[in-house]
Each structure stands twice: as structure tokens, then as C-alpha cells.
């Protein structure tokens, strides 16, 4: 892995104006990526595309939910939400007067939390017959009143959604963000003449964010979990699947637990921000109607003053080998569903390419093996799909899962689907893939590679993700070239190792009909 400067490096690194450009690649796709690294470690990638007067931006920070720890679960996601709430200049009527109130609010909430804990203990002490236990209710009531007055005062300072409004009025589209396990990304597209605005505002966002409206947003994040997990059977099942497959690694948590989010505070989340958000942990890709040199100059003018920070520890936890099949059942008011997961490699393992080919052999298209067997021939499933989890485009930082999902078709059961699934996995391990089938996969990979570059945002996300993962965006090209070299023998070897029953976790959704 390439690393820019070690911990404590203070010597200014000579501005690396040297840009790296790949030669015209195979299939006549020119991928002319220009790269520039600021002295503070921020990496900028640019692809000039003049077709339409717009540009897409994709900003990737090397931090995600895998970097959280007990008590801080949800911090990465909540922080991602909070970084839309403005800065010292945006979203406030007067930051200098607002900030003491923010401190006041945090402190009051801390005092209230302590009082509530004491109150819980007092309740228990009374329940076992102790006398003279102090009463906390009166104090809590006073504190609540005070908190209300602080909140009301703070509301007066907020300029609602000013950051979004500023971008909207300037014609921004697709202004959004996403939190993964190993990376958090912020993206937006603009008409091409808004480049100065983008850089000025984003540098402000990185250097001076203000997490105002924090405690309402915490509720929003909990509402998001209800929407995406609690009330969707397949998601509830998936939460059980990965929680069972991983016993140690942070990839085990599918979505933040409400019990932890409820106790995240602004100071705690600011600490998380300070620890992980730094220019040397960020890759920015811009694709569209821009001039690369202008982008580099503007990036430098806007971001250069933001200091580099020491790299925090990576995730050290290594998932111990699984030594026996694990099975888990989720009851839910929905039709049956099956998810099966196998442990596999991380992005830097040579067999990663083999898994990508296996994924396509199994479930890419109507001629894929699982589709043919389960959906067309045996007709025991409505759908079947395979994917890696977490499954970021550039591969995952730590060993991940190969997952197979299927919806059985009534009256066929999850068990019948499971059996048919294993037959196909066994076939992969015992019979070499025919050359034509492998050629089909390679053709599809080559075509999809080109399509992945079609939109500005698509191309920006590809180069940024690969750069962030491997320290060099050309890893993207190497993946394509290495995929072309996968052999039938590789596939058999990897299938034999990975698809063993003892490496497997099986999760089944069992319908639970409502009592009526």
C-alpha cells in the first residue's frame, strides 16, 4: 500500500504537480485521468469531458462504520448527515453568538443523562426497600425546562437548510452522500461555471463544520433504520445473516443500533470527525467540463491551509476462521426468503478476480448458472442473486462475504432452493468451466467496464474508489486486465476452498402471520 507521509511527518512534501496519465487502454477507451496530490495529502483526480457544460464531483473519505467502536456505533453515519448542516459561515445568523449556546446544550444534555442514570438507580434502590433514596425528578424537570429554553434560543440562529439552498439555487443536482464500512462519500454535480463556488464551500465544510440541529438529526437517523431495516423482512434477515457470519469483525453490524445512536452526542461525533476527516484521508474526483489545471489550482487555494493529520489506526480485528456451518432463522410477516454467506478474501488477495468471475458465472444474466437452474429449469425460485458484502466497487479493505439470496417459489421451500444452490456450487468446484462460457463472462466484464464510465458521476466514483483503496486509480485498469486472465483451474480451486459447508452461514426468513 502506498502511503503519503508517515505519522508525524511535518516536512513539507514538494508539491507533486506531476500528473499520472494512463495510455489509451484496451477496447479503444481513452481514460485520461490527471492526478495531483496537495502538500497536505489531499488527492485530486480529474477527467476532462467537454460534451455537456457540467461536472460531477465525488469526494471519498477513508472512514466508515468499520472504524466505530462500542458506544460509537452510528457515529460515521450520523456525522455524514450532520455535514449537511452548515459551517461557521453557512446555516447561521451569527456563529459567535450561536456557539456558546451549542456548548450549553451539549453540557445540559450531559448533566441530564447523568441525572437519568442516577434516577434509574434510585428507582431500583426504592424497589428493594431502601429508604432515604434521593429524588431526581424535580431536578430533571428543571433541567428539561432549561434545555427547552436553550433549544428555543438556538432555533433563532438557524438559517434553515442554507447549504442545500445555496447549492440548489446554483443548479446543483444529485447532492447527497453515503456511508459505507470503509469509506464515506459526498457527491454533487454542478453547471461548469460553479467550480469556484464548489471549492470554496467544500473547503469551508471540511475545515469549519458546525453540527447544528444535531439532536433532531439523531432522530432522523433512527427513523432511517426503521425504514430500511426494521420493517423489511429481507433486511431483517440480512442483519441476522451477517451478525451470525461475523463474530469479531465490524462488518458484522448491518445498521447502527438505536440503543447506541440514542446516546451519541455532538462532542462525541465531533471527536470522530477530528480523528478521521483530514485532507490526507480524502480523494476527490471531478469529471466533466473542467480544465484540470484550473481544478488543481482551485483545490490548492481552497484546501492547502487545512493541515494534514496523523493516520488513525486501521481496523486490526481479524475475523477468526469459521469452523462449522451456522444457521439462523428470522421470523417476519413476509414470504420465505433465503440468504447464504461464505467468508472470502479482501481486495488485495489475488483470488479476488476469481470471485468476481464466479459471481458472474452464477448470477449475471439469463444464461447464468443459478438463474438457469433455479428459475428456469427447476422453477423453484422467483429470483436469485449473488453479491459480495460489504461489496464496494474497488473491493473491501478486509475479508468479506460472498452472499447468495433467493426467493423460493411456492410451494417450493427454502430447503429445496438450498439443495439446488449447493449442487451448482459443487459443480463449480468439480467441473472445469467450458472455454466459451468463460469467454462470455470476459466479454461481459469488458463491456460493463466501458458502461461504468458512461456518466460523469459513474466515472468519478470509479476512479476515486480505486484510488482510495489502492493508492492509485490505475488499480481499476489492472482489475480489468487481471480478470481477463482467470482460468477454469482457478475457478475450481477457489470454489473448492470457499464453498465448504463449514465456511457457510444460512439465514432463513420464516413467515410469521399476524395474530388476528
Amino acid at each position, binding site marked *: 500500500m502506498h502511503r503519503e507521509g508517515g505519522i508525524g511527518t511535518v516536512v513539507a512534501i514538494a508539491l507533486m504537480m506531476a500528473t499520472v496519465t494512463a495510455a489509451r487502454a484496451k477496447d479503444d477507451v481513452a481514460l485520461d485521468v490527471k492526478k495531483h496530490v496537495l502538500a497536505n495529502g489531499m488527492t485530486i483526480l480529474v477527467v476532462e469531458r467537454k460534451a455537456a457544460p457540467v461536472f460531477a464531483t465525488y469526494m471519498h473519505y477513508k472512514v466508515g462504520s468499520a472504524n466505530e467502536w462500542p458506544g460509537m456505533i452510528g457515529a460515521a453515519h450520523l456525522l455524514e448527515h450532520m455535514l449537511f448542516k452548515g459551517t461557521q*459561515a453557512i446555516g447561521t445568523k451569527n456563529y459567535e453568538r450561536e456557539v456558546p449556546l451549542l456548548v450549553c446544550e*451539549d453540557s445540559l444534555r450531559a448533566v441530564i443523562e447523568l441525572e437519568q442514570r442516577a434516577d434509574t438507580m434510585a428507582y431500583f434502590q426504592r424497589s428493594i426497600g431502601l429508604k432515604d433514596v434521593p429524588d431526581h425528578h424535580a431536578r430533571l424537570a428543571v433541567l428539561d425546562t*432549561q434545555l427547552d429554553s436553550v433549544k428555543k434560543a438556538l432555533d433563532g440562529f438557524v438559517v434553515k437548510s442554507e447549504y442545500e439552498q445555496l447549492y440548489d439555487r446554483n443548479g446543483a443536482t444529485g447532492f447527497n452522500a453515503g456511508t459505507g464500512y470503509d469509506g464515506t462519500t459526498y457527491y454533487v454535480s454542478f453547471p461548469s461555471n460553479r467550480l469556484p463556488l464548489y471549492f470554496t464551500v467544500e473547503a469551508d465544510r471540511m475545515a469549519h463544520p458546525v453540527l447544528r440541529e444535531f439532536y433532531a438529526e439523531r432522530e432522523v437517523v433512527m427513523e432511517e433504520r426503521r425504514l430500511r431495516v426494521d420493517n423489511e423482512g429481507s433486511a431483517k434477515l440480512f442483519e441476522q445473516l451477517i451478525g451470525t457470519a461475523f463474530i469479531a469483525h465490524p462488518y458484522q453490524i448491518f445498521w447502527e443500533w438505536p440503543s447506541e445512536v440514542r446516546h451519541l452526542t455532538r462532542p462525541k461525533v465531533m471527536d470522530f470527525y477530528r480523528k478521521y476527516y483530514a485532507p490526507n484521508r480524502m480523494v476527490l474526483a471531478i469529471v466533466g467540463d473542467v480544465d484540470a489545471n484550473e481544478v488543481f489550482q482551485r483545490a490548492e487555494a481552497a484546501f492547502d491551509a487545512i493541515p494534514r493529520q496523523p493516520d488513525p489506526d486501521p481496523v486490526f480485528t481479524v475475523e477468526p476462521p469459521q469452523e462449522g456451518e451456522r444457521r439462523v432463522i428470522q421470523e417476519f410477516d413476509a414470504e420465505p426468503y433465503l440468504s447464504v454467506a461464505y467468508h472470502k478474501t479482501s481486495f488485495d488477495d489475488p483470488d479476488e478476480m476469481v470471485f468476481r468471475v464466479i459471481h458472474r458465472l452464477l448470477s449475471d444474466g439469463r444464461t447464468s448458472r443459478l438463474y438457469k437452474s433455479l428459475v428456469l429449469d427447476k422453477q423453484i425460485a422467483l429470483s436469485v442473486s449473488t453479491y459480495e458484502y460489504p461489496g464496494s466497487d474497488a473491493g473491501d479493505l478486509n475479508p468479506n462475504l460472498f452472499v447468495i439470496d433467493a426467493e423460493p417459489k*411456492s410451494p417450493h421451500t427454502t430447503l429445496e432452493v438450498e439443495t439446488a444452490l449447493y449442487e451448482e456450487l459443487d459443480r463449480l468446484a468439480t467441473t472445469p468451466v467450458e472455454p466459451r462460457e468463460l469467454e462470455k463472462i470476459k466479454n461481459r466484464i469488458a463491456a460493463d467496464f466501458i458502461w461504468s464510465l458512461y456518466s*460523469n458521476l459513474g466515472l468519478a466514483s470509479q476512479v476515486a474508489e480505486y484510488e482510495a483503496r489502492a493508492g492509485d486509480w490505475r488499480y481499476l485498469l489492472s482489475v480489468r486486465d487481471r480478470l481477463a486472465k482467470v482460468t477454469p483451474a482457478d475457478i475450481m480451486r477457489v470454489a473448492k476452498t470457499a464453498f465448504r459447508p463449514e465456511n457457510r452461514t444460512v439465514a432463513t426468513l420464516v413467515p410469521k402471520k399476524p395474530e388476528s
Partner: protein
Amino acid sequence: MRHRAIIRGLCATGLLAILVALWPAATVRATNPYLKWKYEDMKFNPPVPERFVLDNGLVVFFLRDTTLPVVTLTALVRAGSVYVPEEKAGLGGIAGDVLVTGGTTSRTPDEVDQQLEFLGIRWEGSVDLESSDFSLHCLAKDFAAGLALYADLLLHPGFDSAKFQLALDNSKEELRRQNDSPGQIISREFSKLVYGHHPYGRFATPQTLDAISRQDVIDFYRAYFRPNTTILAMSGDLTSAAVKNALTRTFGGWSQADVTLPQIPAPTAPDNPGVYLINKDLNQTNIRFGHLGIDRHNSERHAVRVMNDILGGGGFTARMIARVRSDSGWAYSVGTRFTAANQPGLFYASCQTKTQTTAKTLALMQWVVADLLQNGITDEELATAKESILNSDVFNYETPGEIVERYATQEFYGFPADQLKQDVEAIRAVTKADVERVARKYLDPKHYTVLAVGKVEKFDAPLSRFGRVTTITLEEAP
């Protein structure tokens, strides 16, 4: 910790409340500098696709693009599920499936799949409410092979009977699963409540699926799939001459026919708007309320768009999102929408909120609409909504595939070729009075149909104060 000690001291002495009360109120600060930055309007002449018509009436839009060695091809056909009789609801979806998977008269389904997938060609299609679309994405080097298969599939579909049976069986399984997800329940049941028996509100049932035969699929295809009911949108790394040649060769033999599209009447508002409840053991309630909206040709649609952006359609600055999400934290996803159709579509507001905040969230959402109706909008809201639409107009021309599809869609729905330019002018002309007028005209709080899916007995308050309550029982999976 230090702050905490100070605050604790202040709390103990009661001084904090006094301090906060005395704290200088927020004064309007010097305007945010970024907001003053002004930019010239983008001067941009977007590429205009070439339009030509084959002798058989097939309209083609083509845009040459050499950025990547690829070709996109989409056919829009005047074949919609609204033309299917009520007793065969679900036929549209099955027809779409069979046209994609059923092979051709000279190639088995497996041959088609093998040939397309070997070349990495993506071939997809579906029958929607008022149109069907079938698209092909291939590398430029495979264009000849891809086009030959594409034309064969569209002109000489095989309607393979095993594939028909599979599509029918899969539709039955989907029906069995249609109540698994609350989002799917609310959008289906809300449409049914507002549209009643109108074709826009039809959904398959076990009975209608049992009434569908392979011959119905063939008849549907024969009735609507003709060159004169189809528009092709094409872009890619090819020359115009090569495209004309290739299309004449492959589509030139497709014969015209008079096609009479069944008249679809305007939907009528439901007789019994009110509150409808679906009880399901969830920890979050799906809420939706609204009524009939406007059709896609409505002359006031631009003012409606601006109005809806301000009300709840335009991202975080929209009122409903600001009140329900960022002020209150009661929802992750909340907003309002007008759907587009040839006859009036829907207007609705929707959100998901935890069971314990159901009634107060619904009340707040309805208040946001009422407040806009009563107090109108501000100049700043109008400016934000208009600038946002106008300044993002260039994104209508981002990729060649989008450009040709936009031109094709415009013509498909009877809009002039310069519609995008007209839209810009129309948005520019929208005034505050326009917005307030269309709000009063198209928002009708007295006739809301309200639907909530969730754990009814745990709601924070009964929803009877929002209207007469009817409980809907969903049919069990067959």
C-alpha cells in the same frame, strides 16, 4: 468536563435560565458571502439529435457520440397496460416479460439469450402504464449483431409457451409477496383508493391472472406494436448514414397498420374520501394522503412544479421536509409529489414515521399544506425554486443517451421539439400569484384520501380526527 461543571453550577443556582433569557437574540447577520456570488447563465447549444422517418412511419432520433465505443437504442411503443381490460389486469407486465424472454419465430429463447449475453449486450423491456419501452445497450463493434437480434425480437417475437407459463407463474408468486413490504402496500392501495376502477388504479389479482392466456399476449402485441406507433431513440459511435442504412434494412419491412388506441377517460374523484387504515405489526407507520392531480399537458404545470418544489418536492429547502424532518426529526423520507400521466395523475404527500408520532406527523404535514394555502409563499422561496430548476437545466443534456430519449419521449407525448426551451421560458415567467393560484386550484384539503399502514392500536392518537375511518383488510397470500 469543565463545561459540565460550570453548567451544573449554573443549573444549581438557577442562573442558566436567566442567562439564556438574556442572551442576545439572533440578529440578521451580514448576508452569507457565498449567496451573493452570481454567475452568468450558461451559454450552451446542446447537441440536437437528427430526426428521420422511415417509409413505414417509424420515427428515429439519432445522436452521434464518439466519447465511448458504445451504442444505445430504445424503442418507445404506444402499448400500455391501461389498454388491457380490467378482467385481465396483469397482462401488460406478462406481455413485457414474454417479449423480452420469449425468443423469436426463428430463434429459441435460449439462442437469443446466449447470443446477446455472449457479447455482453444488455437487452431489457417492460410494458408500463401508457407506453412500452425496449432497450439495447451494446459495444459499437457488436452493433450489427445486436441490431439484428433487437429487430428480430421486436418484429418477430416468438411468444414461447414455456416462457409465457413461467412469466404467469412468476406473476402469481409476486402477488403472493405483494404485502411483504409496507412501501409496496401503501403505493398500491393508495392508487386503488383514489382511482377506483379507473385503468390507472388496476392491479393483478389471482382471478385476473387466471384469465390471461398466451393468445392474449399475442393479441396485445398485434394490436399495438407497429412502426407507426413506435419511436426509436438511438445514440452512439456510428455515422448517420450507417444508422439509416442499418435501420432501413432491419425495420424497413415492418408493416404499418391503423392502430386505434382505446380512449381512456379522465378518472373521477372517489365518492368517499376519508381515512383508511391497514393494520400491520410494524414499528413505523407509512402515511400517504392526497387526491387527483394534473395531467402531463396541463397548461399550468410549470407553476404547479414550482409550487410543489416549495411545498414538499424540492429537496431539503421544501417546507414539508424542513418541518417534518429537520425541525422535528420525525421522518427520514417525507415529501409531496404530482405524478404525470395523460389523464390527471395523483397529488400526494407521504412519509414514514415511528408508530408513536403517527398522528402528530400527519397533522403537521396537513398543516404545511394548509399554511401554504392560507399564507402563500415568500419571494425568496419563489426565487430558490425557479433558480434551482433553471440553473440545473443543463443536466437535461448530460449524456447522449438521455438527450435522444428526451426528444423521443417529447414527441411520443405530443410535445414540440423545442419543449425544453419552452419549459425554461415558462418557468422563468412563473410569479408568486401563479404559484398561489395553482395551489388553491390543485390542492384540496377538504377531499383528502388518507391512508396509513402500521400498528394502529399503538398510534399516538386515533386518526378519526382526520376523517371518517375505514379499516382495510389485505387479502391473504393464496
